[in-house]
């Protein structure tokens, strides 16, 4: 196991040096070995390592009936934050029990035949944006699975004992509710496939007018067709965009059209989904570990949080008590203190040393690393400073920046004094400049261009007077 872990680390390091063909072979090998040679967890870890490269190279994936089954709702899959059902989302933990159940409902001979045809089919070329086999085999599978599931779910809804038995079989209420959502997506799989083409590649950023028009037309057509759960289309559309708030006016404009949930209009469906996603984000902040995250990620998280609550408040989605939001805000404040403010002075002052030509390469490398870390910390501080008032940390951040600026200015003044007193006479102008530039750069990042400009001017004047 440790050998494999070491190999995975090695792959991670060289991830973008491996040729496309090798990535494709490796991916297929891992996926085919899943549960045969490798444990599922190991296979997932290996695929997780490869994932950044998979996004770029797009090797053909090992296609299984389960993967085809999940395709209509794959955009909705999320890692379970807790055991609760999330509105408009499907927990990845529900996939296996639900698929087992679906499989048990199907005609086994037909399943075997479908599997054999799938094995005999040729995968698409590396880099293909889609696998045509999914639509081809999916047309049969989604149809049959939806029909069988509809019978089961209707019966469960009408017969409480059957519902209890199904919940027990699936392992809980959440997988059952996820199964209902899966059914909703399977029943409109054809419409979802068409819309997915319009909303590709994922994530879709700012929607284009043609895309908005397509969403409106497809949703209206779906409602007119009498689909049981048209709201699943809203869920998929939201899951494919990086800015779900832009969909509020789109679906609000659809008025009273049905969503499949009694009393919930399309606009309300969007609000409930955004609310669920934001709660999920707040919970993830609560779990975050400042030490593991690092300063840049904490700053990015603060920025994301502030943007999110701004949008939620503007759209009236964050009215009333918001315990998860408040807990996340408090957690972020804490993380800013421990992960961004604490130790910033040590980190930044350590980077002010300049390497000397005769320093061993290890020392130069260490200083380079120290400089990188100091820069990251300074940028994180500035990023947090912009929005610190939104999380109630403005005083601490402003005070930290002021203190740091003073410290760097003092360091700069001491450097100029050293230059003037002749301490750099033996080292030369270049060495003095190198030291000065380091301080100027840090002062610019922490205290701004004006302070840095003063230091640069005074420093260069002093250096000019050094003996040649």
């Amino acid at each position, binding site marked *: 196991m440790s050998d494999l872990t070491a190999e995975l680390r090695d792959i991670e390091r060289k991830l973008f040096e491996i040729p496309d063909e090798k990535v494709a072979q490796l991916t297929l090998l891992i996926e085919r070995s899943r549960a045969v040679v490798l444990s599922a967890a190991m296979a997932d870890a290996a695929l997780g390592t490869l994932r950044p490269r998979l996004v770029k190279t797009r090797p053909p994936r090992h296609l299984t009936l389960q993967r085809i089954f999940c395709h209509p709702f794959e955009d909705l899959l999320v890692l379970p934050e807790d055991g609760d059902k999330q509105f408009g989302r499907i927990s990845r933990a529900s996939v296996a029990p639900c698929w087992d159940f679906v499989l048990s409902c199907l005609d086994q001979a037909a399943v075997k035949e479908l599997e054999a045809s799938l094995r005999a089919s040729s995968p698409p070329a590396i880099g293909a944006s889609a696998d045509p086999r999914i639509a081809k085999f999916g047309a049969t599978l989604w149809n049959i699975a939806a029909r069988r599931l509809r019978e089961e779910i209707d019966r469960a809804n009408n017969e409480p004992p059957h519902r209890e038995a199904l919940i027990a079989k699936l392992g809980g209420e959440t997988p059952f509710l996820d199964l209902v959502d899966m059914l909703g997506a399977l029943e409109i799989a054809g419409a979802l496939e068409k819309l997915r083409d319009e909303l590709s590649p994922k994530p879709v950023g700012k929607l284009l007018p*043609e895309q908005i028009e397509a969403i409106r037309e497809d949703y209206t057509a779906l409602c007119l067709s009498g689909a049981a759960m048209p709201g699943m289309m809203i869920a998929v559309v939201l899951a494919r965009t990086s800015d779900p708030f832009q969909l509020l006016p789109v679906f609000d404009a659809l008025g009273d059209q049905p969503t499949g949930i009694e009393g919930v209009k399309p606009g309300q469906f969007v609000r409930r989904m955004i609310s669920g996603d934001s709660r999920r984000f707040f919970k993830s902040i609560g779990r975050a570990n400042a030490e593991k995250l690092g300063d840049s990620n904490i700053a990015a998280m603060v920025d994301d949080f502030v943007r999110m609550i701004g949008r939620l408040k503007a759209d009236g989605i964050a009215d009333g008590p918001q315990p998860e939001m408040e807990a996340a805000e408090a957690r972020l404040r804490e993380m800013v203190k421990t992960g961004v403010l604490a130790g910033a002075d040590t980190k930044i002052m350590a980077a002010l040393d300049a390497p000397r030509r005769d320093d061993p390469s290890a020392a130069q490398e260490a200083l380079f690393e120290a*400089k990188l870390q100091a820069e990251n910390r300074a940028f994180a501080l500035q990023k947090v400073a912009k929005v610190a008032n939104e999380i109630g940390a403005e005083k601490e951040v402003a005070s930290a920046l002021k203190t740091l600026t003073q410290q760097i200015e003092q360091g700069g003044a001491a450097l100029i004094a050293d230059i003037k007193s002749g301490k750099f006479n033996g080292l030369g102008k270049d060495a003095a400049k190198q030291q000065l530039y380091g301080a100027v750069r840090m002062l610019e990042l922490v205290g701004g261009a004006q302070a840095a400009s003063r230091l640069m001017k005074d420093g260069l004047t002093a250096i000019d007077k050094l003996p040649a």
Partner: protein
Amino acid sequence: MTFPGGVGQQFQPTRFEERGTAVSFTTPALSQSRVRMDDREQLELTVSAFSGAKGNYVIRWRDVPEIFSLTMHDRALQDAILARRSCLPPDIRQATLETAKTGLAGPEAQRSAEEELAELENEILLTRFFLFRQVIDGMSDGQMTLQVSDLTTSSGRERIRSGLGDIAERLGTNSHELYIRLERWGELLAPIGLPGMPKKCRIGRLIEAIGDLADRLDRWASTDKSEAAGLARASARMARFTEEFARELATAALRPVEYADRVLSNWDKAVIPLKRDLERLWWTVDGWEFIILLWRAHEDRDRDAQRAAVTEIYRILPIIPEKEAANRPNLHGIQESSRMQVRALEGWNSGMLDLEMVRRVETVKRGRI
């Protein structure tokens, strides 16, 4: 290959000298603005109009720090360029690398500049070696063997000089002068290198990367449904045109090596077109490195960021001036339709630099082709 003409054309420069050389400023508002000489041989900066209007602002180079809030790196770069009093691309490049070496654009840009300066020296050495070898092999009946190390030691250089005696005499000069000519010629050719060299030199790599960028932008355009797809295709067409044009210039610049005896015997006259051809090649590829690195930095980002990058690429696209490619009837200026947005580069009321925007520009500066 044809380009749509339009009102933007009246603002297109007609010569490289008029277009100027792109400067790798890290101040977002000035990123890739251009430096050129005015009619009194004074440096000036051309900056695209901020409000989205067509055309450029032209500012005296020495006034730039008074007009813009510059990063400290850019103040040093502005000084370095002013001190050189040249706007030729190789000189601007040297000033850019020397400034990045100070660390004022961050430690990664510093390291990258140090590595590139070292590589530049290696390319000069290797090109000189291949040129010396080619000339000596061709004109001394293979009687003299040459090692790279001969060019780095005084005894080695002395050995070459004495070995060049016969050849120099045939060319109507002396061995010392011939050595200097070959050294100078090697230095001029170093950015493209000579055929047979074990690795491609800087401009050779850049030409290849421009072609690769065209493919990448075309691929991206085929997956995008927004207006940016059209800009990406137009940028790809310009990249292909530039790649083709630069390849022809590089081939032409290397051709005189085939008749080195004539070039070396008439050096004073022959060096003028040699320098001019290489200068044109430098101008042709100028500004593309930033674009290539900008796209690479955005390829893994989200669609909105990629569309913004494509718009930015189109805005700063180094269009080959009309008269420089007059023999190519298919080159017309690309309509400047992309300057439709006001970019949030500075706080509008404070004039303070947005450090995050600066960092984005610096991130591109870290990369190398």
